[in-house]
């Protein structure tokens, strides 16, 4: 799976989590820019991503995420580790 596919699926999950069907994100988007992406929905999003991609993060990895691009890279890393 390449990065743009990951981003697309991430966007789909985020739309469900924050309840905004029109939401568009890119690699530079940060949580602050998306209405409703608060600490609680962040956890929701992580769970959604873990289920969607069948991967599992550890808490420490999630601390350093700066933007959507960083999240996509982290998902990619987990997917490649899985293989």
């Amino acid at each position, binding site marked *: 799976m390449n990065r743009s596919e990951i981003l697309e699926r991430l966007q789909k999950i985020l739309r469900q989590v924050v309840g905004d069907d029109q939401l568009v994100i890119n690699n530079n988007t940060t949580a602050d820019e998306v209405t409703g992406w608060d600490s609680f929905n962040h956890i929701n999003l992580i769970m959604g991503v873990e289920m969607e991609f069948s991967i599992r993060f550890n808490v420490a990895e999630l601390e*350093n995420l700066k933007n959507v691009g960083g999240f996509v890279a982290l998902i990619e890393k987990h997917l490649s580790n899985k293989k």
Partner: protein
Amino acid sequence: MLFNSVTFLVFFLPLSLLIYYLLGHLQMSAAKLWLVAVSFLFYGWWNPQFLILLIISILFNYTFGYLIQIFKERRRISTFLLVIGLIANLGALFYYKYLLTLMDWFHFLGLTHGQSWGSIVLPLGISFFTFTQIGFLIDVQSGNAEERGFLEYVLFVTFFPHLIAGPILHHREIMPQFVKKETYLINWNNVIVGISIFILGLGKKVLIADQIAPVANDIFKHTADKHAVEAWTGVLCYSLQLYFDFAGYSEMALGLARMFNVTFPANFDSPFKSKSIIDFWNRWHISLTRYFTLYLYNPLSLGIMRRRTAKGLPPLRAGETTWKDFFIVLALPTSYTMILMGIWHGAGFQFFLFGLLNAVYLCVNHAWRLFGPKAPKIPFSRLRSWFEGVWRWALTYLSVVIALIFFRAKSTPDAFSLIGSLFGGGTGDSPGGNQGVVEAILDYFGVAVPYWNYSNSLITVGVLLIFILVLPNVLQLFEKEESSLTKIRSTPAFFSFEWRPNILWGFFLAVLALADLLMVTGTTEFLYFKL
């Protein structure tokens, strides 16, 4: 030593800066050592005996960080070391901060008899340096911090701009700055930016917070039986006193660090502009919220979520959440985190209530998002959304003002009696104080209105709130200079402008600095120093 004392401003700061850069150009490690030395001096100025505690704490945590790193591959040993480290840190904090209060409680409940327990003096900044180091140990164990040498570690903990009252730093954001060579070489731009931010912060402290403090102090001295006008004036003034005191302190810290080529995370991003409580906690004491979210809320919340998912339950979504889910997945970790946050601020039961009340606010806010009416597809008219904004702002601000009563009150009964007064519970005597402007004018026309002698204070509150609402904050003023490590959340202010290194700003800041210096007494402590 206080940032707002003459000793600090006239001797300590200029000398430590000058020698820092002189040494920095000769030998980097000499400059580091100097910075550590002045930081110890800064801390020891109050009470030299607490230096011993600080040094023990540093040696202990550095050793444990080192050991945890060595046993990184052997999870069980490193976790065991981490637990021992946490128990020791929290134990020390408990002893100095909570033991006496707890013993008084037991005594009050009749569980203990006999003599009083003597006194334990709270070492300055213990809550801050303990938390900084607990964060470090957790980071080492989870692979988010790497040991970088003892001197750098001591500098990370003791660097005087943050030692006493934060911002609470993460090892990973500060250490890279301390190992860079450029940090020890003079950069005039950073010095000028640092001084400018510092002057603005000092102004907030001495020209605003200290000036409205007496009104706030008065009301909390005798909370019972106040007239509603008097009570409201007092609590509104207190909210602004605390705001300007802590914002001022945090900006001074930001500015001081910048003079030494170090960039800190921010603590304040116009919290009184917030239109929801969730938003407020992301803008007020940001480094503390960040800390509690990272080390308490996230692990707990993620743990609960994982258990749900293991049972095959879906994540929570707006519109398809039950109240039971809400309580388990959201209200539980939120309350737990906020109550601990409250107690971190102090030992009395009122701090527990401060945390609990904020937990309730946050849960209501989240519940409204999940269960409340959906935002309409067609946006509101401009007028309607403006009113909506005002209403949300006012509700948020007033909720904060009420919560802060528990933060400031000497005891829980005091807090409740003051809240009683706010809603007309007290009769109050004829209030003292000077004749206010409005009263004077009304008096002139022969109209006597009781309680208008508070009008001066109320006008001050109004003016300060308008200032906060329409002017850019320090992060925005210095956005181009990257004044902090924190991303700015505030939208551009109504009157939007930026700091520039030009004559106009130079003149303004020089005048402000002069005013600051004239008002500096060095006798008023910062409110957050008591933590």
